[in-house]
């Protein structure tokens, strides 16, 4: 099966600019996750979707981060405006109720 696809792989922006990341999950996986992985730390959940509904966004900084999964398939995560501390790898993952999470290769964001 095809894995979780993410783009872009790398992105460098200046602070206060905006950026968007895209994720296409494994076909048939109803649950989609966005994680933030800061260097030296474990992944931290930003938002979890079940189909096109939000299950958990308690750790999403909603003043600057937004995410959508309009048709219940692919998803976009946006940051506007970016801060230096947003520099991290953004990981997308998907699963169904019985499977472990399958991760994409991530997008490495550098904010200068």
């Amino acid at each position, binding site marked *: 099966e095809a894995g*979780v696809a*993410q783009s872009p792989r790398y992105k460098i922006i200046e602070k206060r600019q905006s950026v968007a990341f895209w994720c296409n999950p494994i076909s048939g996986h109803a649950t989609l*996750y966005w994680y933030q992985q800061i260097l*030296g*730390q*474990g*992944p*931290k*959940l930003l938002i*979890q979707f079940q189909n096109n509904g939000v299950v*958990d966004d308690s750790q999403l900084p909603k003043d600057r981060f937004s995410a959508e999964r309009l048709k219940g398939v692919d998803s976009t995560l946006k940051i506007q405006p970016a801060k230096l501390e947003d520099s991290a790898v953004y*990981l997308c*993952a998907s699963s169904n*109720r019985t499977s*472990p*999470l*399958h*991760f*994409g*290769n*991530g997008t*490495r964001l550098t904010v200068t």
Partner: protein
Amino acid sequence: AQSVAQPEDQVNVAEGNPLTVKCTYSVSGNPYLFWYVQYPNRGLQFLLKYITGDNLVKGSYGFEAEFNKSQTSFHLKKPSALVSDSALYFCAVRKGYSTLTFGKGTMLLVSP
């Protein structure tokens, strides 16, 4: 709240020797426990999981882990380490289908 502790930032082992990467968890009720591995510039890959049943679970690449309820531990083990096992290892826990919480990771370095 659920949490995971990986007490070692780094584990060093010689090729051919057994390895152990430690993990303890905190969650109310019965835990679902996971180990993931991350190679440089890649997403996380699933290694193994414990849901219920036999306390010793076997996973990919010869890895295994032992669930110990009294010690709230889920240590990752391999009888004979390979240089190619060198990577970042994450332990994770969730209760039922709740959010998956990761530890901070342990870097495993296997020397030739």
